[in-house]
Structures are given as C-alpha cells and as structure tokens.
C-alpha cells in the first residue's frame, strides 16, 4: 500500500523557521484534514511537500513508498505521484491547457520520459481529457484556452481538480480548494475528489470550511499550531473546530498558542 511519510519535517522560508517538526503518515485511500489558524504553517507544509525551492527543508524527511524525495525537484516528486492543488493557481499566458496537460500527463505516466521524447498519443489524450472535463461539468472549450488566463476563481479551482484527475497522483494536497467557491462549485469539486480518492489516492485537505469535509469525510483531522501538529483526531475534531473555533485548542496547548501569537504579532509589525 502506497504511503506518504513525513518525519520531523522542519522548513524555513528566507531563513525564518516555519515548520518545527511535522510528523504525518498518509496511506492511499485515506482522507486527512489539516486545520489550524492563519499562519500556523498549513500552506508551508503544502509547498514544502510539493518541492517549492523557496521552502527550505532544514531537517527531516519526506518519503513516498519508502523513496526519500526530500532532495528531489518538484517535477521528480510529481512523477512519483505528488500533487498540489494550488490555493492561487498562476496564469501562464499563451500556453494552452491541452498542450500543457498532455506534456504533464506524459511525464507522469512515463516517469523515465526524457525531454523531447514522444508524448502520449493525441487521440488517447483527447478522449481522456474530454471524459474528465465532462465529469467535472467543464466546457471542453477550456482545453483550448490559455492556462488560467482570464479564468474566474471557480474555473481555476476546477482546472486544478481536472489536472489532478488527469495526472492520477498517489497523494493529493488540496490547499484551500474550497475557498472562494459557491456551494454548487464546492459540490462539483467534492464529487471530483470523491471519484478519485477511492482506494487509489491519499488526500490531505487543507481547509477553513466545513463544506468540503461534509462531502469528503476525513478519517483523520490534524490541527496545526506554530508549525507543529498539536492534535490529531477523527472527523468529529473537524466538526468541533468548526463549531467552536480554535479557543479550546489554544487552551489545551498554551505553549504553542503563545508562540503562534507572538509570531503573528512579529509578522504584523514587519509589514
């Protein structure tokens, strides 16, 4: 069974420590929710897992199926099955969705593929892309548009899920994929995730909201404070946090709560 193992992960951004020892194990087929107040390190974990060069791993390891990927580039991790659905996907003008995706999918399906080697056959690719777009209720005209160029917030999020559906990762991190979406759009995204998560894919959902978790019920809920996971529970923990906020969490973990609030003051002061 495929496993994503994060051991004592410490991450700095521009020299400033953000993650201070994160331990987490996700198996394929599992849904994990990651919650926590702003600035607790959730997005940092997401970027560090995906391999953003600005997020420097100072200690600890990330393993996919026992393969240590800590030192690997983002594209090598992606080929091994890591996927991040971005909170704010960037625009790439002039690059058509279909051209980009055909390239990406070819690399994912043949991790040994070298630059300039054959891409996935056009006919197969088109057929598959059309099917996935229909499942996500997307106009197939999107395939010809420039990547995220002129897309609405909801369209961008759907595009992220479409990429996930095409790339078929082993592990997907959804970074606030539900933020800024109306409830119909959240439903479409949730259905997309459900269709894929099944037994094949492990999911880490980073969210402030309850809606996505209603449709994609997590087996595990983790709460982050000051760059550490301070509590892990089941779906009821997520429900409790939605109902009561983070006050009780802070009470139970006064040390981390103090660290978190002093860091936030510091970052506010530096603005």
């Amino acid at each position: 069974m495929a496993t994503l193992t994060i051991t004592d992960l410490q991450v700095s951004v521009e020299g400033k420590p953000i993650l201070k020892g994160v331990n987490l194990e996700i198996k394929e087929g599992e849904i994990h929710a990651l919650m926590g107040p702003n600035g607790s390190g959730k997005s940092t974990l997401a970027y560090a897992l995906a391999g953003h060069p600005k997020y420097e791993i100072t200690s600890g390891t990330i393993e996919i199926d026992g393969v240590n990927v800590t030192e690997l580039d983002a594209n090598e991790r992606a080929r091994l099955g890591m996927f991040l659905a971005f909170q704010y996907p960037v625009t790439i003008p002039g690059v058509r969705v279909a051209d980009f995706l055909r390239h990406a999918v070819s690399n994912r399906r043949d991790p040994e593929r070298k630059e300039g080697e054959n891409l996935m056959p056009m006919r197969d690719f088109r057929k598959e892309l059309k099917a996935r777009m229909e499942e996500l209720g997307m106009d197939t005209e999107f395939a010809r548009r420039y990547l995220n160029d002129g897309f609405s917030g909801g369209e961008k999020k759907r595009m992220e899920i479409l990429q996930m559906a095409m790339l078929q990762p082993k592990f997907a991190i959804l970074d606030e994929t539900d933020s800024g979406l109306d409830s119909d759009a959240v439903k479409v995204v949730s259905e997309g995730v459900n269709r894929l998560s099944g037994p094949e894919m492990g999911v880490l959902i980073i969210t402030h909201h309850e809606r996505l978790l209603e449709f994609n019920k997590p087996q595990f809920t983790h709460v982050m404070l000051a760059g550490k996971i301070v509590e892990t529970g089941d779906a009821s923990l997520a429900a409790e946090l939605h109902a009561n906020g983070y006050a009780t969490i802070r009470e139970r973990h006064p040390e981390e709560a103090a660290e978190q609030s002093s860091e936030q003051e510091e970052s506010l002061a530096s603005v």
Partner: protein
Amino acid sequence: MSTETPSKTDPSLGDYQYGFHDSTDNYVFKSRKGLDEEIVRQISGIKNEPQWMLDFRLNALEIFFSRPAPKWGADVDQIDFQDIYYYMKASDKQEKSWDDVPEDIRKTYDRLGIPEAEKQYLAGVKAQYDSEVVYGSLQEDLEKQGVLFTDTDSALREYPEIFREYFGTIIPSADNKFAALNSAVWSGGSFIYVPPGVHIEFPLQAYFRINSENMGQFERTLIIIDEGASAHYVEGCTAPSWTEESLHSAVVEIVVKRGGRFRYTTIQNWANNVYNLVTKRAMAYGDSLMEWVDGNLGSKITMKYPAIYLMEPGARGETLSIAFANKGQHQDAGAKMVHCAPNTSSRVVSKSISKGGGRAGYRGLAKVVKGAHNCKSSVVCDALILDPESRSDTYPYIEVEEDDVTMEHEASVSKIGEEQLFYLMSRGLTEAEASAMIVTGFIEPLVKELPMEYAVEMNKLIELQMEGSVG
C-alpha cells in the same frame, strides 16, 4: 566531394543544427577578398549588366565609403570590410529541377527540408546559395496568370522596364551605409510581380544559404503587388558555423498597390557568427494591407527595422516581430511606420526574449507627417528576460505632426516567473520544459499568425534555443 569538415567550424557555436558546410573547390567563380571599384566592375561584368546598373553600383560604392558606420544600435565596428568575399558563384546556372542542381548543393537543401516543403505546401521556391540563385520554380497556373517569380539578376535582363521603374526607388542607395553597400555589390534575391487581381494562395518561399567562410551575401529583393492582388512570401536563412564571421546585408523593396495585400515572413536563423544588417521597406497604397512577420533567432548581430510607408488613404500596415537573443547575440530589431496620408493605420506587436547573456531590443519609429489627418498607430512591445545576465532595451521613437491622431504605445518587461516555473514543474515538467513552455506561450500570439508549417518550425527553433538552458 566533402559535405562536412567539422574541424574548421567553431565548436563554441554549440549545437546549431545547420552549421555544416560544403566544399568550395568546385565553385565556378570566387572573387578575391576585399572591396573596391575593381570588384564592383568585376561583379557587374560577370553578370553582363547594362551600363546604367554599373553606374548605379559605382555611385553606391562611393556613398558606402563616404558614410560612417552608425553609432547607435549594435556594435558593427568589428566588421572588417576588406576581409570579406563579395562574390562567390557555386554553380553555372539556375536550375528548374533539383536533379540538375550540383549534388553537394542539392544535398544541403535536402537537409534543410526545402524540396520536401515545396512538394507539400509551396507555390514557388527560390534557393540562393552564396551569391547566386541555384534553383527556381513556380506553379504552372501562376505562370499562366502572369505571375513573375525569378531571381533579381534575371529580372534585370528579362523585364528591364518594370525592373527599372521600381529598382532603388523605395530604398535609395543613400538611405543608409548598408543599403549603399548592398546597392554596390548586390547579387541574387527574389523578384516578384503579381498582376492585378491575382491571388496566390500558397506561400512563395526563398531560402538563403551562406556556405563559404568570410562570405558576404547581398541579395536584393524587389516585389510588386499590383492592384487588388495578394501574396505571401516567406524567407528562411541559415549558414555554417564558421570560425570566421560572415556578413549578410540585404535590401528588400516592396510596392503594394491599391487594394493589394501582401505578407512578408522571415524566419532568420543564421549561425551565430553572421552579421545581419538588412534594410526592408514597403510602400503601401490606397486601401492596401502590408504585413511584415519578422522572426529573428540567429546571427551574431542583427540590425533590422522593416518599414512601411502608408502612402494613400486607407492603407494599413502591420508588423509582428519576434527576436530571440541567446549567448553572444545582439538582436536590435524593430519596425518603422510612416503615415504619409490621412486615414491610414498601423500596428506593431513586438516580442523579444533574451537568455544566457544575450541582448534583445525593440527600436521603432511611428511617424505621422503634416497633413496625414486621422491616423491610428498602435505599438505593443513585450520583453521576456530569462536570467539576470541577459538584457532587453526598448527605444520607441514617435514623431507626430498632426493633432487628430490616435497613438498607443505599450511596453512591458517581465522576468520568467519563479511561481510560473514552480507551477509547471509541480505537474511533472522539468525546468527546461517549463521554461520552454513559458517562452512558447509568450510568443504564441505571434506564432499563431503563421501558416501551420512555419508555426511548427518556429516553435521547434525556440525549443532548440531553450535546450540545455538549465544546468
């Protein structure tokens, strides 16, 4: 017969795929190195030209010697004009069948894919090899409709009246130092005449190949699109990767008469040791449309600013320009639009990319003369810089002598974004693939204007430029 002697070519020029060359042992004629009156008389004599052309050449030579090199733009002071061969003739005559072209030369064009392209999608082809055109063809039905497509030397002999009416009138010898040089030693180039109302559906292609070392290629092109006619002309250029530099200095003169439409597409891919100093100008008359599509990827230095003079009301001009400067290259490219009549409009879209310490720039002129009321001009130039060593410059010149004119100028410079790279890489693309994709996307608005075959070619060339870009 040797086709490749890689020992003499410069390995530092990298993996430029057209860097091979043929032996010059079997050439029919080679001039001595250097430039003076004797060389000019020799060229004119070999071509058996009328007196007026010899006089024209000698006058131009005087202008060339009397003019200083331009002090702006790229650094051309390094060119030693006495260390160049001004005339090299590889074969006796121009052939109408590839089978009759000497084997070495034919093989070269095979490797460049010209005969294959001709079969598939071209209406006519001219292949120039060093100083002379070695092959020419034109579809039979176009010939029957009165279309002329020949090399410029033959045009002087066979169509003297129309030739003399236009030759040197759009770009006089005194226009600039390099136009004077071309006027003195010109050889080869294309001559096209499209009669009134004739539409040429497929492109006419010319392919310019420099083969010899220290060669100067000075083709001279003259194109006349008569009233209501239309055509598309495409030129490609490559050269071997010699250690010594070569010079390419062309003059292209175009007339588009009332209601005509003409597009001139260049895919310039000279080896990185060629100085490319070209003067191109079109005169567009009433309600006509003239378009330059100008892709500059190769050469050591390019200075080229295709111009359109909008001569009568309703004339429209458009220039789409792409420049890619890699290591050791300086692309000083641009466009000129001169509004000489009321109700004329022009549009310039320029995209430049610099990488590996290369320097790419846009230098342009938008001019509206007195009396040219109600003109519209729009210039958009975007630059993409791929690394901190590279450079981009924008020099837009605007001269407007009327008030009721709409002028728009937009310029942007961007660096390749770390977040864009990460986004694509997080989907499994290598850094090189991701950069290439961003660059391809950057020029996509221009590339999509090209016929499919050329768009594919352009994207392939860009990918080659991007290869090995990441350490």
